[in-house]
């Protein structure tokens, strides 16, 4: 008869090995994604070298590819989105943690989190049929009247544009930034607030002088996390940004993003070089978002350690 303790040791070991196997799937996944992108992109990397990043010709007929317009469009639309989204999202987070009456906190948090549950393609459609007409009638004319002389508002506004892409992205990343910022602010010890209030600060002064500085690294992390989302967002942007291979600083002109280029052109990329060029675009996008996300996570972990922020979409 074998000792029950011996059998237990073995079954415990097997259990642990099985779970470890599942856990190893994640590092494996990132290696697979990188491997797939890199091997497929290699012909384009070899052929175009650094010029891929800085030239603007994208010509499938003569097989010359330069991704500068997409890289520019991705960065420009994401930064525009951040400019709009950050004040909104931080307000939501501050309102929910500091000012809202207890009864309001749950419903408002729920509504904002619901925004995160709306599929990207639905945002895109809403952008085409509601947002763009709205921008055309009510936003662009007054903007042009006041700031029309700046290089950012040159040209005629046809609808599909960098502006439309940035605004739709802003609406989409507000819930992410708000949810993570809220977690960060909740992690700020109550004693911070009490100390400021005891010194005679108003509630807003307490937030500004004691709560926000304490959570600063985490809040910046939340914003960078939002940036990561914006950089990789595909459908909604593809549907409203205009998809033109061109660099223009005017917000009213069509632009292109890396994700949109892959979405539009991948299934019609017939030659090996064309496909490889799109894979290189994917590789750049992946490396960029991984780097941005990694930075964001490190910042957030410094404040709210081990919180699986953002994963709780609802």
């Amino acid at each position, binding site marked *: 008869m074998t000792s029950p303790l011996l059998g237990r040791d073995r079954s415990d070991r097997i259990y642990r090995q099985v779970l*470890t196997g599942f*856990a190893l799937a994640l590092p494996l996944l990132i290696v697979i994604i990188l491997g797939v992108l890199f091997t497929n992109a290699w012909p384009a990397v070899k052929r175009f070298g650094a010029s891929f990043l800085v030239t603007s010709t994208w010509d499938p007929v003569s097989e010359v590819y330069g991704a500068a317009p997409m890289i520019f469009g991705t960065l420009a639309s994401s930064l525009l989105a951040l400019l709009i989204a950050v004040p*909104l999202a931080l307000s*939501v987070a501050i309102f929910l943690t500091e000012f809202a009456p207890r009864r309001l906190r749950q419903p408002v948090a729920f*509504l*904002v989190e619901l*925004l995160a549950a709306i599929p990207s393609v639905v945002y895109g459609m809403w952008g085409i049929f509601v947002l763009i007409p709205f921008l055309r009638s009510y936003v662009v004319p007054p903007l042009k009247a006041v700031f029309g002389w700046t290089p950012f508002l040159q040209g005629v506004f046809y609808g599909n544009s960098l502006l439309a892409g940035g605004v739709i992205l802003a609406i989409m990343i507000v819930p992410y930034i708000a949810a993570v910022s809220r977690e960060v602010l909740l992690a700020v010890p109550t004693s911070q607030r009490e100390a400021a209030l005891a010194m005679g600060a108003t509630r*807003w002064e307490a937030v500004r002088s004691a709560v926000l500085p304490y959570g600063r690294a985490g809040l910046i992390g939340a914003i960078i996390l939002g940036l990561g989302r914006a950089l990789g967002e595909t459908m909604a942007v593809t549907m409203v940004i205009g998809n033109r291979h061109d660099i223009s600083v005017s917000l009213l002109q069509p632009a292109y993003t890396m994700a949109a280029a*892959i*979405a539009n052109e991948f299934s019609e990329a017939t030659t090996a070089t064309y496909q490889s060029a799109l894979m290189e675009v994917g590789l750049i996008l992946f490396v960029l978002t991984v780097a941005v996300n990694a930075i964001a996570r490190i910042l957030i972990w410094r404040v709210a350690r081990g919180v699986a922020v953002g994963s709780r979409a609802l």
Partner: protein
Amino acid sequence: MTALVVILSFTAVLALVLILGNLIVKGASSIDWAFFTKSPVPAGQSGGGVANAIVGTAIIVGVAALIGVPIGVGAGMYLAEYGSGRLGFLVRFIADVLNGTPSIVVGIVGWTFIVKPTGHFSALAGSVALAILMIPMLARTTEEMVRLVPNSLREAALALGYPRWRTSLKVVARTAMGGIVTGCLVGIARIAGETAPLLFTALGNLNFTVNVNQPMQTLSLQIYVYATGPFDEWHRIAWASALVLMGLVLIISLAARWVTRQRYGSIR
């Protein structure tokens, strides 16, 4: 400043109200029984429905869940039970980083492993891509939920002579089951609306099919094609499809909340 914060917060909430309002106003009128039971008709004709897309969404998401749930939940159990070491830290970090990966890039992976070797688009490739999106999400929510289980329960089981694996499965995992199920439902709700990774894997299909080796339609692909198409009739169907998809996502999300509430009462 306080007033400004309140105004900006309500602006953000207003966006949601506007989007949902638009969906209901523009979509509801087109939804009738035929919409759920018929397949699309050729462009130019009116009528038809999105039965193929609804069934396709269910199949693609279902297969993705079959692949993704065991791996994601297993990885989450590892993180909660054995994740204090260096490997745990690495896996947790990678899960968080992968959570922000552009879904279109994951579509490329599905395409490379299934579409390219077989030479044709297929629903299965789409499911694999969606499963990859699910895994990091599930790993983190499972870990969080399992960590909520009080240590005293674990200790009690071990003290009674339960082996560790049995404690983990029969006591810890079972106690956290409500939370784990919630995590899975939230994950399913999220991938149900995904479009980008399906563009060059599941591709879309105008006909009704249940064959996972063939191209298959989903509600999200249908919305994309019809909303960007030139016909008013298509736009009408796109709005209605969006309302159906949104309703589906909402029902799953609310079910997820309900499961959690049954177990833990109201959480934060």
